[in-house]
């Protein structure tokens, strides 16, 4: 389940149609993994973080990604609020699975780019309910898949309900999830709902995708949300809304260099 970084993996999927009969869980998830996310993507995003007292924090970002022959590169720039403005994150997701991803973080306070270790991908991504493993994606081969239901509609769209179980303790440690249950829309192979069983703190996270539409011929979820709960009570939630999404526009290779992080947008 290798994906482009910056949520592309859980946001976007090519509308592959009519191959919806008698597929195994592995085949379905392979379709999800093989989706076309465009050679390039440009978008503006608003990330709203809401705590259990309903206090909101809002972060605005500009996102760019580009698919190269051997690597997917992505870069995100925080535009607001002021205390994180100009912070940027660059990552290279190598198609050769033996290569670890590369990533760099630019902190404007230090005016220096620092390489970051792959680290614990179960950590929160920029303070949100999404983790680095949600954002950067995991390998398809790291899970075993089982169809729980052949037909379980979500918002009027027929879906497969598929359970994904990590193949090892190492994967559980890396992602922080004991297992996930996923609703995959049959008409678009888009993940529209998910329940994530979080090992730390025995929490449940509920994922859902909304405002789904085709942009430049590519299925895109305009809004995704992740809600963290414990004992059926909401602890924190994150809503990620995309605006001005465009695919396959020209993005210069130079965009994905550490010098661009230092210069800023």
């Amino acid at each position, binding site marked *: 389940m290798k994906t482009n970084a910056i949520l592309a993996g859980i946001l976007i999927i090519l509308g592959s149609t009519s191959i919806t009969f008698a597929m195994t869980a592995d085949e379905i998830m392979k379709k999800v993994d093989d989706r076309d996310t465009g050679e390039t993507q440009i978008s503006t995003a608003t990330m709203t973080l809401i705590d259990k007292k309903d206090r909101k924090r809002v972060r605005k970002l500009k996102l760019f990604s580009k698919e190269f022959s051997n690597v997917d590169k992505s870069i995100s720039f925080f535009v607001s609020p002021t205390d994180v403005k100009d912070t940027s994150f660059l990552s290279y997701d190598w198609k050769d699975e033996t290569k670890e991803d590369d990533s760099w973080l630019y902190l404007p306070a230090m005016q220096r780019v620092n390489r970051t270790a792959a680290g614990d991908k179960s*950590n929160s991504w920029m303070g949100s309910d999404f983790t680095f493993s949600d954002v950067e994606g995991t390998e398809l081969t790291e899970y075993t898949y089982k169809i729980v239901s052949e037909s379980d509609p979500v918002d009027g769209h027929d879906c497969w309900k598929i359970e994904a179980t990590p193949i090892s303790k190492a994967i559980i440690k890396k992602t922080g999830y004991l297992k996930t249950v996923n609703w995959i829309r049959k008409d678009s192979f888009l993940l529209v709902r998910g329940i994530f069983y979080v090992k*730390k703190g025995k929490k449940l996270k509920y994922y859902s995708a909304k405002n789904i539409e085709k942009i430049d011929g590519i299925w895109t979820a305009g809004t995704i949300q992740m809600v963290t709960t414990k004992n059926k009570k909401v602890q924190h939630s994150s809503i990620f809304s995309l605006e001005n999404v465009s695919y396959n526009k020209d993005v210069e290779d130079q965009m994905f260099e550490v010098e661009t992080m230092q210069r800023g947008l």
Partner: protein
Amino acid sequence: MNSLFWPLLLLCSVLTTISHGQSVDTSEDVSFFDVEDTETDDNFFDIDVDTDEETETEINSPYSVNGSVRQEFTYGIANPGSLFAREQKGIEKIKSELFLQLQGKPAANLKLKASGLVDYEWGSWRNDAYSLGDMSANFELKDLFLDLTTDSGLWVRIGNQILARGEFDTIKMTDVINPIDLSAPAQVELKDIRIQVPALFLSAPVGAVTTELIVTHDAGFDKFGTLGPGSSFDFSLLTQQSLALLPENVSVVSEEQEPNKSWEAVSRVNYKLNGGDVSLTFGEVNWNQNSLHSIKESSPLIMEYGYDRVKVVGLSGNLARSDYLFRYETALHDGRKFQTIDPLLAWAEHKQIVAAIGLDYNGLSDTVLSAELNNTNIMDYSESLVSEENAMGYLIQARWSGFNDLLSIYGAFNKLSGDESSIANLFIEYDLSDSLQLDGRLIIYDAKSVSDLFNTFKDQDVIKASLKYSF
């Protein structure tokens, strides 16, 4: 004051351990989750938020102005003694700060940035107490530069700027461009540690590498505290203490010479590869701290201080593997002068090799643990030098962020190279909202003997609290 620091660092460690403890729960099954009960549409929470339709307009606007207002309180928790304005425990400083920044993009390949800081200290220590009044505001220009880029990847930045390089901040190796603010070690805000310099910066990709050329003019020197209201780190006290060792019939005056050359130049070659980065550095700079260049035979003796012209060759880089980030850096400094034991002798020139290694561990939940070790070696060593031939220092630090990044806790212990001086630091930051930030800090200085660098300042321990509003 170490007795205060260690329990707090322990608290930081406990928080980290608790966090880690949860993450290594050995429970393998998911029986504690009632899977069937949780699968209702209501669980998927249809949360609506107001989407700001102005987002794209704001982001694409060619100019932006932002800044912050910060109110800071500093309280001394030890008795520094009669050498300082504040001799005993009490309020050290009340400071207000306004930071403003303008960024613009007048053309697709042209950017500009200008920023400045105005601070105001509300009072000073007078007559055994902190008193308000009789203070003035200070303005400090920060960034002021133009960026020009070309389609070929050439990047030119000209103006007042920071050029932070290298992998370590505890000891100077290849990061030799910007002077450092040492007016209150470990107390200065991150964004203010390096001092901007007027420079021309060129960066260009050449094949697989990126080359950089930096030329500065009149770049200035490290900033030290001076005697005066509220000042606690007047390093000229060390010189005075050294001169006090002179025979009674010898009197001296000090003169400071400007560097012979006002320009400095550094070039770098950076190579980025899967799992690591490597940089080579070559430079010729004015060292940012002065040294005793000569003593003129006269009455009184004239001690002429100047700034060493130093050639720098260095290597720095990192290797990222799984949860670990290994960092390394080394440099040869040719042209530095080192203090001699005899205060009536000019300092002696020696080559010096400085090296450091560091390891960051990212494998614990929301936590980064880090350890650094540094070493300085004076070549062709002479027993007449004050400094040791080989000196070691180290830094250990831990940073934890939790509650969706609302709360951050940072603890560090830095044993300085060359003697038994150390600085311990505990920092807690809480985001009250997107625009309001509250932080607290405990800083403890220590030294073991009178010859240690921080012996004079070992009782400048403080707690600080600040509230920052960003806009």
